[in-house]
């Protein structure tokens, strides 16, 4: 093996053209998602101060529909549902993000290690993440949380984070496996870079998009799981979240009493938050793989009235009516 005497120049390629900053934000889907997400984050922070009533406080307005005094109506005990939804936002956002961060750190550790190092340990880590992947999450969470002596928002977030890293680890492992064979990684290895340095400075920067999309995916998953758990009655003690609102709506027969206002706002909030996170994820996907963007207008009318559909990797040849070779239009 010859050693190419280019020491020092094997640094990551410095882009000659300055990259446009904030390209990601220019994506309309990502922008919409981030704006909605920002709104929920704001409500999570200031929620307890802007809520007009105490979410658990009872009043004499029992089971009333939406009005000026109670925007989302009241419960069977006269509690204000708008306040419950607003105050509950914090718990939802906190669980989503803590679980997302814990799961992302674990998935990076497991995925990148098993992808880069190879060998028996790698196979073992991969098998471990596959096991966590096929175990049904909801029943597993139920039997874990029901044995905990007391559950707070934080413990729920940690349990979700500790059990939901497997998907990200699997994707990261696959991506790392493909990256470690690339020329620039080989070059770094040949110049005697330390393994941790290669992983931190050569591999990880190229995984940013995958990690980000995995994080957003885990947040969606964690939020849904927390709300589902609260809905079936396993939740953080006295904390309100959207699932708790739905739990009370279900257990007090809100449907049979026609109290639609009791469960519609919380459900719409869940769907809106989920959509916002999915939009951010689409933005990341399209940022990485521009093909996925919607194609714009692809049906093109030609001069002679034919319609040609444009397609990636496909060049339509538009024959003129009286071409020199006399080709016929198909």
């Amino acid at each position, binding site marked *: 093996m010859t050693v190419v005497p280019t020491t020092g120049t094997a640094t990551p390629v410095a882009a000659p053209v300055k990259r446009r900053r904030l390209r990601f934000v220019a994506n309309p889907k990502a922008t919409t998602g981030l704006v909605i997400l920002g709104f929920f984050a704001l409500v999570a922070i200031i929620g307890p101060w802007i809520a007009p009533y105490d979410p658990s406080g009872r009043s004499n307005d029992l089971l009333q529909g939406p009005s000026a005094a109670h925007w989302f109506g009241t419960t069977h005990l006269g509690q204000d549902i708008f306040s419950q939804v607003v105050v509950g936002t914090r718990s939802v956002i906190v669980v989503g993000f803590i679980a997302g961060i814990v799961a992302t750190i674990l998935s990076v550790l497991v995925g990148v290690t098993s992808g880069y190092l190879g060998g028996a340990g790698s196979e073992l880590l991969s098998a471990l993440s596959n096991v966590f992947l096929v175990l049904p999450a909801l029943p597993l969470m139920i039997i874990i949380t029901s044995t905990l002596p007391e559950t707070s928002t934080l413990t729920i977030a940690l349990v979700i984070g500790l059990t939901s890293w497997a998907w990200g680890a699997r994707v990261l492992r696959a991506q790392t496996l493909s990256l470690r064979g690339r020329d620039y990684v080989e070059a770094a290895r040949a110049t005697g870079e330390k393994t941790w340095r290669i992983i931190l400075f050569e591999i990880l920067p190229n995984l940013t998009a995958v990690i980000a999309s995995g994080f957003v995916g885990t947040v969606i998953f964690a939020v849904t799981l927390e709300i589902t758990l609260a*809905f079936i*009655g396993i939740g953080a003690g006295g904390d309100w979240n959207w699932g708790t609102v739905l739990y009370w709506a279900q257990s007090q027969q809100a449907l049979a009493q026609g109290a639609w206002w009791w469960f519609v706002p919380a459900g719409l909030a869940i769907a809106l938050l989920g959509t916002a996170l999915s939009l951010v994820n689409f933005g990341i996907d399209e940022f990485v793989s521009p093909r996925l963007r919607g194609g714009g207008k692809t049906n093109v009318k030609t001069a002679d009235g034919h319609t040609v559909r444009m*397609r990636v990797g496909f060049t339509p040849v538009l024959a003129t009516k009286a071409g020199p070779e006399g080709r016929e239009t198909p």
Partner: protein
Amino acid sequence: MSYLLKRIVFYVFTAWAAITINFFIPRAIPGDPVQALITRSRGQMTTEAVQSLYVLFGLDKDASLAEQYFSYLGQLLRGDLGLSFTYFPSPVSQVLGDGLPWTLGLVGITTVLGFLIGTALGTGIGWRRGSWADALIPVTTFVSSIPYFWLGLIAIALLTGPDSFFPASGAYDNGLVPNPDLEFIGSVVQHGILPAFTILVSSMAGWILSMRNMMVTVASEDYVTVAHAKGLSDRRVMVGYAARNALLPNVSGFALSLGFIVGGTLLVEIVFSYPGLGLQLFQAVGAKDYPLMQGIFLIITLSVLLANFLADVAYLALDPRTRREG
């Protein structure tokens, strides 16, 4: 065949992991859950039943952990999962036997149907990228973000009522005795339509999105261009060339997300009071019925593993490359 063999080894390993989790978790329960049950049963329990619960919950203090583990495994092999607190004095295995057929029927059929319909729709939308079909994507995103159970609540609020065709709860009319006759089957179908529709709508959305993205990626591959250049019909290129290859990641995705989907569909059972495992799990949580919870976790995990295995067999049939290796 070595591919299948590898998968079987993996599933056996996973099943063992699930059983081991099931063995250790009850040992973390504070207090003495068995004593609580004995108190509640007011002395109606036989000594054998008490002993079996002690093995399940690891309260047999004289035995070492290894001994406890093996007696636990032996008990599982005999199908003894202890007694249910909620359905006392029925054993857990019998309670599970009552619930499983309903869950398999409802969840099994709708999950597979949702995958098939969603994949077919995704194929069409992905192939016609940039046409009106793209407008469906934001809609499906929104629908896939809605929790299954909330959609069920809405369906009940909108579509059921005193004089509606759709019943709001149960799996068949209360007055009927389960018999394989026309009246009973008709009643089961009538009760099943709404929960099934709820699961279909929410599970389909995800498959549409992932298939659409795979189709868009595959559509620019060289072999698709070659197929076009050969002058094959658009339909044939779409189904036989693009979709066939785009389908593979979707099938493995199906296998991997089964555990998640099953979790969501169990919630639909709760909303519709459908007498399957989901409703039993809900009742077990409410009553702190640990043996039933554990039994349900075990049976759901084993079913998901079996379904995963079937998806692997389907993958094998779809992708000739996996067959050649063996």
